């Protein structure tokens, strides 16, 4: 069964500091994609970053980067220079390449940013 686990229900970070959100997943597939989505209080889910499992290089989008450890089935999100606008729920998600109709979402991590 494919599952996505986010073990940190809530985290806090000081503005301008760095924070890492954890995500692990369980799969027997070898070809898949991983995603981090952000859901601010306005509730729209916004794609933060995506990673193809076949790529060894970790994806980066400005202040957001991932640490993808395929063997460990770990996909953490690092937010550098945290800003107040980063405060949101963050969801990790997984999809198999030959079945993109099915996305598996984690339970989410609420990130608080302190001024």
């Amino acid at each position, binding site marked *: 069964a494919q599952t996505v686990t986010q073990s940190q229900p809530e985290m806090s970070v000081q503005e301008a500091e760095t924070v890492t959100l954890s995500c692990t997943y369980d799969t027997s597939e070898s070809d898949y*994609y991983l*995603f981090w*989505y952000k859901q601010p209080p*306005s*509730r*729209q*889910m*916004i*794609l933060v970053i*995506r990673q193809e499992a076949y790529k060894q290089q970790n994806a980066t989008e400005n202040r957001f980067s991932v640490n993808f450890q395929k063997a460990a089935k770990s996909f953490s999100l690092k937010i550098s220079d945290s800003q107040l606008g980063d405060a949101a729920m963050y*969801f990790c998600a997984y*999809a198999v*390449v030959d079945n*993109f*109709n*099915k*996305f598996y*979402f*984690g*339970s*989410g991590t609420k990130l608080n940013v302190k001024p």
Partner: protein
Amino acid sequence: SAVISQKPSRDICQRGTSLTIQCQVDSQVTMMFWYRQQPGQSLTLIATANQGSEATYESGFVIDKFPISRPNLTFSTLTVSNMSPEDSSIYLCSVMTYQRPDTQYFGPGTRLTVL
């Protein structure tokens, strides 16, 4: 990514009534999906909206309760029928585009409260 709008953005309804939620995209998309997100929870896929044919429902969701239409490649509706307070949730539309058929992009959501 596509620009996705949902109507209404929120509504308060009486028990036993029905509400139809619209999802409109500014360009043709390959796939459209409907999710439910209960308060403080992750996303649960209700169904895949198929253009010109019946939607594909996930386990636990039935057409009589959640009829879905997708008359073309840019528009879909989800109806929540015979509502009860347990249907109070955020309902999210998501799409996959021709340009990026491996990633889901989400609409702003509809917050439904059933009294």
